[in-house]
């Protein structure tokens, strides 16, 4: 599965390790915010000109651009967060995000590209906890001060057949 820009570059082990730790910290904050925090804080992890995309692996492999969610710019993320919180009708649910296998792919021009696995568990009120998605983040980070921000996050899921819907952000 090749996505332009996410090629593997040889990195010095020490640098790769340090950056990986930074990204793991970022994932912790991001996932905690989605799982426990306020959705209003979710757009804050992105740059103003970000691209946020959720798509099936089969689309990426076929070189097709479709997004199940396609948000260009932080404003579209704000609108989605608002709609999820205030206007949309769906059964109550809890989500938990797990990330692992963070791999720093390349660095340069002020950007860090990385790939991580994610696992999304969903618990509906009356049901068991199910694996809602197994996927990968393809991330482009930029630094703002000492903080990482997402300039691009592509959530590419292996779980082709979605169980009914995907109501909350990945």
């Amino acid at each position, binding site marked *: 599965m090749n996505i332009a820009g996410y090629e593997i570059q040889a990195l010095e082990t020490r640098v790769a390790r340090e950056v990986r730790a930074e990204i793991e910290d970022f994932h912790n904050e991001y996932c905690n915010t989605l799982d426990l925090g306020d959705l209003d804080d979710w757009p804050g992890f992105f740059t103003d000109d970000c691209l946020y995309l959720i798509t099936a692996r089969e689309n990426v492999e076929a070189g*097709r651009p479709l*997004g199940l969610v396609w948000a260009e710019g932080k404003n579209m993320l704000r609108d989605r967060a608002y709609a999820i919180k205030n206007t949309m009708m769906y059964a109550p649910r809890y989500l938990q995000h797990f990330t692992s296998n963070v791999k720093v792919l390349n660095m340069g021009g002020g950007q860090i590209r990385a790939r991580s696995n994610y696992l999304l568990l969903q618990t509906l009120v009356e049901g068991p906890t199910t694996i809602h998605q197994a996927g990968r983040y393809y991330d482009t980070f930029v630094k703002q001060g000492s903080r990482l921000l997402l300039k691009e996050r592509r959530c590419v899921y292996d779980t082709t*057949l*979605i169980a009914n819907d995907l109501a909350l952000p990945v």
Partner: protein
Amino acid sequence: MYTSNVVIGLPGSSSKELKPVDLKWPEEGVSVVPDWVYTSQAIYDREVERIFHGRTWNYVALEAELPNPGDFVRSFVGPTPVVVSRDKAGQVHVFENRCAHRGVEFCRKARGNTKEFVCPYHQWTYDLNGDLIGVPFRRGVKGDTGSGMDKDFKLEEHGARRLKVQALHGVIFASFAADMEPVESYLSAEILKDFEVVFKGRKLQIFGQYRNELPCNWKLYHENLKDPYHGTLLHAFLITFGLAVAGSRSMMYADPSGRHGTLASAKPKDMSVVGAETRKEMRSFRDDLKLSDDRVVSYVREFDSEWSVTMQTIWPNLIVQRELNTLGIRHIVPNGPNSMIMIWTMFGYEGDSEEMRRIRFAQGNLMGPAGFLGIEDNEALKFLQEGVRRSPTERGILRLGSGNGTGTSVASESALRAMFAQYREVMGL
């Protein structure tokens, strides 16, 4: 796979669900719908036989998905797996994805390009039109007496079962019935008109696909799109941004047979066309809902049509979505009485500007399994299926508006009644 049974309750957890039912439609006719049309295995089996395998045209693929000789896609007619392929001469074929030998579903890839299909189990080989062209050791193993196929075995008698095929404006339909009328007449004139707005004379560019399982009966998806009443009540987005709203211009067209429909609406210039009285009836109307980026709901006029939205329900397995500028096919794959799979193929047109592509992507956020509207539909249909499976009550009602057929108000269920009138006839209910 969706764990709908675990979530909803195992089949039979409600005393009504597995109880044999007398399949007799209530005396009141189509203003009443008995729950067993959504839950009975006997009904589902009859639907597969009489509807999906009967005298209907079923959507299988878009020609744009298989532009070159040798291209193929895995698809479904009803719940039945089929292969759609393009042969060397450019002809499109549809045949059962089942090896004549032991029944193996031999085509495993969602799409690709090939010269032939080889069953992985015993390597029986089929060409691009489904004909059997090779059987290993057909003449036996040299020196082994009593090996190989019997002398009467003829390859040409054991090809994959072929379906009748017709492509119309790049949309491929297939049928198990050999004597189908042309797709144009099957659709009828009015349905064809809005179908052509999307497909005629324009080359499609496929953006991609997504798939989801809805834990509901397949008919409910048709019903949802023949039901303008819910659109103006359930969907805050539709209402607040005037995409489809009580008081604006809309139509729920039902073709003369009652099986197909077009749900159409025209986006008003602003919401002042909707009176205060009407607004009050719509609890989901939100004065406070403002978008930071309104590309999601901004319609760029590009079609020769008075409607900004047309949702076509084409019986039995196709929905054509033209929601503002976001275009797509929804392919219904029934999956037992309590489940269906939806395959979404989203597209634009060849020659779209980069800006137009982005508008289509942005509006794509409205629909689909993560769409502002799509989530609400999927949730509502799931709740409906749970209700008909679990409650001891046995019927629902469709009494809004009058008559069976086209409706011009959102507060009408006439198209739903028309659908059930033809359904009863085909199903012998």
